[in-house]
C-alpha cells in the first residue's frame, strides 16, 4: 500500500507539467492580441501596448513564455492578470468559495442521493420507489443550467427561502446553488445505489447472513450496503471532475466569486497565467481525489489490492 501511494504521488509531477504545458499552449494558440482587446474599440497608444507586451512576455515564443512562467512558479510567483492583480491573490480569495460550493454539493448528493437510493431499494415497487424513480429521471433529464435558473426563480425569488446571489449569508448562501450543482449526480447516485443494493440483497452472502439470524439492519448496513458502495464510489471519483466544471455555470448564475467564473473570464481574456494557475489547481484536486477514491476501494473491498 505504501509503495503504491508513493508511486501515485510521483505520478503528480508529469501530470502537472503536462497539464500546464497543454493549457498554456492552448491559450497561446487562441488567435488575436489580448492586449489589443483590453481597451476595446478605442485602442491605447502603441507605447502603452509595447510596455504591457513586454511586462507579460507576450512577444516571446511559446517555449520561452512557458519557461519564464514555470521558473516564476517554482519560486512561488503565480504571475499577474492583465489588470495587474496577482493570480495568487485571486486563487486565495476564490478557492474557498468554490470549495464551500463543492463541499455543500458533495454532502447534499451523498446524503440525499444515498438515502433515496437505499429507501427505494428497501421499498421496492412501493410508493417511495416510484417517487425516487420518477424524480431522478426528471432531474437527470433537465440540464443543470436550466434547473439552476428555475431553482433560483422559484426558491430564491418567489418563495424567498434562499438568497438569490452572493455569499452574504455564509453557509446558507451555498445551500441552493449547492443543491442545483448536486442535482444530476444526486439522482444518479440514488439510481446506482438502488440497482446495486437490489442486486446485492438477492446475493447468496446476504441470504447466508439472514439465515445466520443477523438483524435486518445489520444485514443491509454491514453486508449488502458495503458492497453496493463500490460502484457509487467509482462514480463519485469520476463525478468530481464534472462537478468542478459544473461550478463554472453555477457560480455564474448565483454570482458566487469562485474559481469557475474566473477561469471562464480568463479564457475569454486570453490570460494564460490565470487559466493555467486555476486549471492546475483543478488538476491537482482531481488527481488527489481519485487517489483517495482508489484507496477507499481497498477499504471497501479487501479483494482489491494494489501491490
Amino acid at each position: 500500500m505504501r509503495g503504491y501511494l508513493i508511486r501515485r504521488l510521483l505520478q503528480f509531477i508529469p501530470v502537472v507539467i503536462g497539464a500546464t504545458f497543454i493549457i498554456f499552449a492552448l491559450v497561446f494558440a487562441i488567435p488575436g492580441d489580448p492586449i489589443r482587446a483590453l481597451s476595446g474599440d478605442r485602442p491605447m497608444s502603441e507605447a502603452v501596448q509595447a510596455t504591457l507586451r513586454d511586462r507579460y512576455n507576450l512577444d516571446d515564443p511559446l517555449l520561452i513564455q512557458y519557461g519564464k512562467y514555470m521558473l516564476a512558479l517554482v519560486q512561488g510567483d503565480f504571475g499577474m492578470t492583465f489588470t495587474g492583480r496577482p493570480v495568487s491573490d485571486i486563487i486565495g480569495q476564490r478557492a474557498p468559495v468554490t470549495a464551500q460550493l463543492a463541499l455543500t454539493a458533495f454532502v447534499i448528493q451523498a446524503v440525499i442521493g444515498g438515502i433515496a437510493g437505499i429507501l427505494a431499494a428497501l421499498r421496492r415497487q412501493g410508493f417511495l420507489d416510484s417517487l425516487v424513480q420518477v424524480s431522478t429521471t426528471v432531474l437527470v433529464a433537465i440540464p443543470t443550467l436550466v434547473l439552476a435558473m428555475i431553482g433560483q426563480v422559484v426558491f430564491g425569488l418567489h418563495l424567498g427561502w434562499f438568497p438569490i446571489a452572493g455569499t452574504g449569508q455564509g453557509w446558507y448562501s451555498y445551500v441552493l446553488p449547492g443543491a442545483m450543482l448536486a442535482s444530476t449526480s444526486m439522482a444518479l447516485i440514488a439510481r446506482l445505489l438502488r440497482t446495486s443494493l437490489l442486486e446485492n440483497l438477492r446475493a447468496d452472502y446476504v441470504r447466508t447472513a439472514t439465515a445466520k439470524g443477523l438483524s435486518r439492519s445489520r444485514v443491509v448496513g454491514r453486508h449488502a450496503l458495503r458492497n453496493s458502495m463500490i460502484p457509487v464510489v467509482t462514480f463519485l471519483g469520476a463525478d468530481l471532475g464534472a462537478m468542478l466544471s459544473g461550478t463554472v455555470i453555477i457560480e455564474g448564475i448565483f454570482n458566487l466569486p469562485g474559481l469557475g467564473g474566473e477561469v471562464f473570464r480568463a479564457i475569454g481574456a486570453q490570460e494564460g497565467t490565470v487559466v493555467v494557475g486555476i486549471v492546475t489547481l483543478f488538476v491537482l484536486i482531481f488527481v488527489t481525489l481519485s487517489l483517495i477514491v482508489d484507496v477507499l476501494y481497498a477499504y471497501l473491498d479487501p479483494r482489491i489490492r494494489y501491490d
Partner: protein
Amino acid sequence: MIKQHATRVAALAAAVALLAAACGSDDDGEPGADAPDEAAEAGGEFTAYTCEPQFLVPGNSTEVCGSMVLEQLFSGLTAVNYETSEAYGVVATDWDTDDNVTWTFNLRDDFTFHNGDPVTAQTFADTWNWVVDPDNAQQNSNFFDNFVGYADVVEGNADEMEGVRVIDDTTLEIELTVPFSPLPIMLSYTAFYPLPDEAYEDIEAFEQAPVGNGRYEIDGSWEHDVQIAMDRYEDWPADNPGLADRIVWRIYDDINTAYLDVQAGNLDVLYSIPPERETTVESDFGDNIFRADTSSFTYMGLPLYQDEFQDPDIRHAMSMAIDRQAIIDAIFSGARTPATAVIPPVLAQHREDACNYCQYDPDTAADMYEAAGGPEELTVYFNSGAGHEDWTEAVANQWQQNLGVTDVTFESLEFAQYLDLHDNEEVTGPFRLGWVLSYPSPQYAMEPIYTTGQSSNYTGYANDEFDNLIREANGAPSPEEADALYQQAEDILLEDMPVIPMWYETRTVVFSDRVSNVEIDPRTFPRVEQVQVTE
C-alpha cells in the same frame, strides 16, 4: 464582453416556459405605487449594480464598471451639464483662452484629497505627466496626444509635458498642438482626474483603496468580485454633494442575476437590464423604471479599402434597404432609437433629419444597388458572444430580400481576433462596431472614428474636406460656430457614408422601492449621487 448570451436566453426561455407550466398564474401582489414626491432629503444607504472593474486608477480606466465608481471617488477640473452639453467648473472655477490653443484654468483652493492633501495646479500637472509616461502603461494616456510635449514624454525624451505649466497653486496653463475648443468638456473625462502623491509610491496598493477628491470616499478597500463601499466625504467643497450617506456597489458577474436581486429587494439600483427582460420589465417593476436615451451608437462599418464598397451609392442603398424599426421591435423589444444622424440625439447639436439615406426605402435601394453594381455575395462580420448574432442576421436578411444579394456568409470572431482583423485591413464585408461618448462633444462622436488615419477609424475612410471641417470646428472661436462646422462635417460624413448608422441604445434602469430619483446620463452612468433613499 465574454458572456454566453445565446445559451442564457435559450435556457431562460426554457425555464420560463417550465415555470409557467408548473405554477400557472403566479401573482406577486405588488404593492401599490408609492407616493412619489417627497422633499429631497440627504441620508441613508443603498446598493447599486456594477460589474468587476478592470482598473480603479483614473488614467487606466476605460470601461463603465470602473469609471462610474471612480467618478464618485474623484472630481476633475470640469464636469458636464448634460442638458446643454456644456462644461462647468468643479475643481476649476473658470477658464480662458484666446485661440483655443493656450488655455488658462483657475482652480479653487479648498479641494482636498480624502487623506487631507490639498489639490493644486501642481497636483494635476504631476498626475497628467505620470499618466502619459509609457512606463506606467496607462490606457488613457493617448487622451493627452494633443498636449504640447506629449510625444516627447512618450518617446522618453522628456519627463514632463511642456504644454502643462503650473503658474501658481491655483493657476494651470495648458498648451495644445492644435486649436481644440472641446478641451473643457474633454477634461471632465476620467483620464484627467487628479491623483494624490501617495498614489505614485505603490500604484497597485493605491488601486485597492483609491484616495480621491470626490464626493464619496472609499470605505475599506475594493473587495474584488463582491463589492466596493463608499461614504460621503463631508469636506467636499463644491455644490451638489451626494445625497446618500453611503453607496455600496455590489459586483455581479451576470446581469440576469442582478435583475432577480432587484426583484427580490436585495439590490436597489440596476442601470441596465438584460435585453430579454424588456418584454416583462413593466409587469416586474411597475413604476420603478427609468428609461433614457444614451450615446451608445451601433453602426455597420464598410471596409472602404475593398473595391466593392467604394461607390457611395452602394453604401446608400445598403442603408436604405434596412428597416431599422422592424429589427428594433423584433429583436430589442423597442429598446433602441433608429439612427438618423451621426451626432447622437443626447447631444444638443443633434439634428433629427441629418441623414438622407437612413429611411427604409427598399425600392429606391434596389434600383440604386443594381445600377451601382453592388456585390451579390456578402460576408458579414461581428464579434461573437456579445449578443450581435440576431440583429446582424436580420440586417443580412433584409439585404437579401431587398437588394438581390444572393449569398451571405457570417464571420463571427472573438473580440481580440476581430480587432486584429481590422488592424490588418483583412475585413471583406460589412462589420458591426459601436461607440460610446467618453465626454459629450460632437467632436468625440466623429473625430476618432472618421478622420484620416485615426486609431478607431476601422473603415479606412479618408476625406480631406471632412478632416478640415473637424479641424476648423475644433479651433472655432465660439461654440455656435463650432457647432455649425461640426454639423457641416456630419453632412459630408452622411453623404459619404463610410458607416451605416443603425441605432442608439435606450437604457432601462430598474430600482427598488427603497430609492427614488434614479437617473442615468448619456454615457450610461447612473447618477448615484442624486439618488434619494426613501426608507
